């Protein structure tokens, strides 16, 4: 096993993952360096979301074989919150509702737990206001409860807002573009493009249309728990046009 490159953010080696005894990921390799945007496309059930969740440390998934490294460090021993504090971020496909907890309080506490220093009142407010105006979010968001009664687009914007504030070194974006209208898609893309140069990005999507706004370096086609083909942005167009059948392994 080689020494990690200085700008290596994520390395996945021969990963096998099961949920309740069913194998979902069956031998996957992937390396993401700083400044790289990777896109994974695939059918429902191909194991895309599982990959994002297992990298973040979801307890429901069991790694049966292989390893995951973040900045060269094996993740095995790190709890979910330690991964977050180390600089990993997952934008959820379905973010959880936390009733009674105001967005403002939540953001401040989250930033305080991830950064070494607790954010200062005024400086943090300024940072927050800037990020929110960039994402065209109204201030009234701050007094709402986390994801409660949020539309799909609002949930995704809150995810991206958190990403901007937490400034991760590795951003995993799980179907962040699903269910967004054109405006929301443009706004969300702006957030991704802002974070991308300093981080490694893994974008999971079904659609090529996000890629009108975000330029990936690598596109991977995932089928039945493995990456079967890797290419540039043109692969995304091809997948959208032709579907996945042409990539299926012969039985």
């Amino acid at each position: 096993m080689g020494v990690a490159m200085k700008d290596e953010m994520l390395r996945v080696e021969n990963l096998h993952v099961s949920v309740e005894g069913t194998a979902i990921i069956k031998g996957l390799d992937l390396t993401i360096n700083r400044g790289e945007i990777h896109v994974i496309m695939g059918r429902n059930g191909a194991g895309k979301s599982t990959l994002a969740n297992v990298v973040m440390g979801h307890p429901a998934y069991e790694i049966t074989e292989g390893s995951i490294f973040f900045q060269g460090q094996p993740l095995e021993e790190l709890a979910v919150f330690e991964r977050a504090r180390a600089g990993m971020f997952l934008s959820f496909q379905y973010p959880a509702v936390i009733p009674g907890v105001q967005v403002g309080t939540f953001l401040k506490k989250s930033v305080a737990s991830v950064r070494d220093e607790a954010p200062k009142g005024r400086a943090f407010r300024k940072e927050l206001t800037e990020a929110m105006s960039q994402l065209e979010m109204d201030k009234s968001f701050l007094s709402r409860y986390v994801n409660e009664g949020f539309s799909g687009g609002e949930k995704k914007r809150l995810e991206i807002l958190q990403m901007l504030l937490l400034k991760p070194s590795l951003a995993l974006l799980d179907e962040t573009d699903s269910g967004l209208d054109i405006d929301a898609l443009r706004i969300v893309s702006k957030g991704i493009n802002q974070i991308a140069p300093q981080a490694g990005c893994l974008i999971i999507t079904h659609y090529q249309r996000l890629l009108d706004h975000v330029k990936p370096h690598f596109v991977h086609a995932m089928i039945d728990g493995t990456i079967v083909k890797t290419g540039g942005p043109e692969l995304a167009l091809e997948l959208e046009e032709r579907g996945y059948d042409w990539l299926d392994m012969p039985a």
Partner: protein
Amino acid sequence: MNDDALEAVGDYRYGFHDPENATIRFDKGLSEQVVRDISALKDEPQWMTDLRVKAYRHFEARAMPDWGNCNLLDSINFENITYFLRSSDKTEKDWDNVPDDIKNTFNRLGIPEAEQKWLGGVTAQYESEAVYHSIREDLEEQGVIFLDMDTGLKTHPELVKKFFGTVIPHSDNKFSALNTAVWSGGSFIYVPKNVQVEMPVQAYFRINAKNMGQFERTLIIVDEGSTLHYVEGCTAPSYSTDSLHSAVVELIAMEGAKIRYSTVQNWSSNVYNLVTKRAVAYKNATVEWVDGNIGSKLTMKYPSVLLKGEGAHAEVISVAYAGEGQHQDTGAKVHHLAPNTTSNILSKSISKKGGRSSYRGMLQVMPKATGCRSKVVCDALILDDSSRSDTYPTMEIGNATADLEHEASVSKVSSDQLFYLMSRGFSEEEAMGLIVNGFFEPFTRELPMEYAVELNKLLELEMEGSIG
């Protein structure tokens, strides 16, 4: 460190205690003589002595409730309780004159500081009696009476006689009988017509001695068109043997009056907390009970409102937190006795580490009370498999025009919520604390901010060491 000090060490932040410097201390145990001695010591009018004795006899004759947590109730040893303990000869108006130990205790509890910042008056009860009492001059000038109950009986005997025991008769239940027999301390408040008391007044109840019984008695009368917000807090040292707190609180809201009564109960887990709280609301009056139960071994308390006048409104918002070895048997009762009366009941409970929380509610609509509306919402959150939550709602609806809603839910913290929060940098304990604070938010937002912040901190502390 002696044994007592060791006993006081634990998670509970208010478990410290002072040395006992009683000026008068009755021997443990209860008898008619004890009841007469309390009355004589306080130099009370004959009618009060007679009422105490009558109540004592009722208490003796009355069986324990056959519902609730009977095992815990039956384990109360009434002979091992001190029924009267005077720790200071006078109720002072200046903290500097309060004995040092006691003053330091209230300083640690933050009472004098809160008084300066945001309260209209404070009464501080230590064991059986108030050691400190003060009201802002402007309130006094408007004719507001805010006294400890003993002083109230002395200085306003007619007013007290007119209302005392009219909302909660001594024979209401075994513990209202006990309180009526041995009551000492508590608050007496009268707000004259059309006076809006802007700043809350606060009572703080502290038990210090071992095996102490605290039996404060509170009577609040808010006259026509007036408003009052009363806040109470309570704590006690942690001991390995039990103490008993059994209060009676009577509220009277005259026509168009509004009373809000907020409680943050945080007794140590060796205290039995068996309290009767009831209000009467006349025409277009509003009574709000905001009732938080965090501490105690067993709490049985169901704040009630009798909606006696047309258009009266009741609001009961309560939360209960049952941790290890605790049973919170709480709830609300609302009786719609007049037409077009309305009520809202919101009850939220959390059970953890084998704790048990029970919601017990009564909603009654009388046949002649037409056009009433009521909404009852009960939410329970259970944090682990060893904990328990029960709901015992009773509805007696005697009128078909009533518009009623009832919602109940029992939930667990979902693994999705935990994973989400942990992915944002929160440890599992911090995540739990956040979820718990959020769950109680509909309650905490009703508290004065200082209390809300304190309560949130308290709940976060409770979540420490709760995982794994």
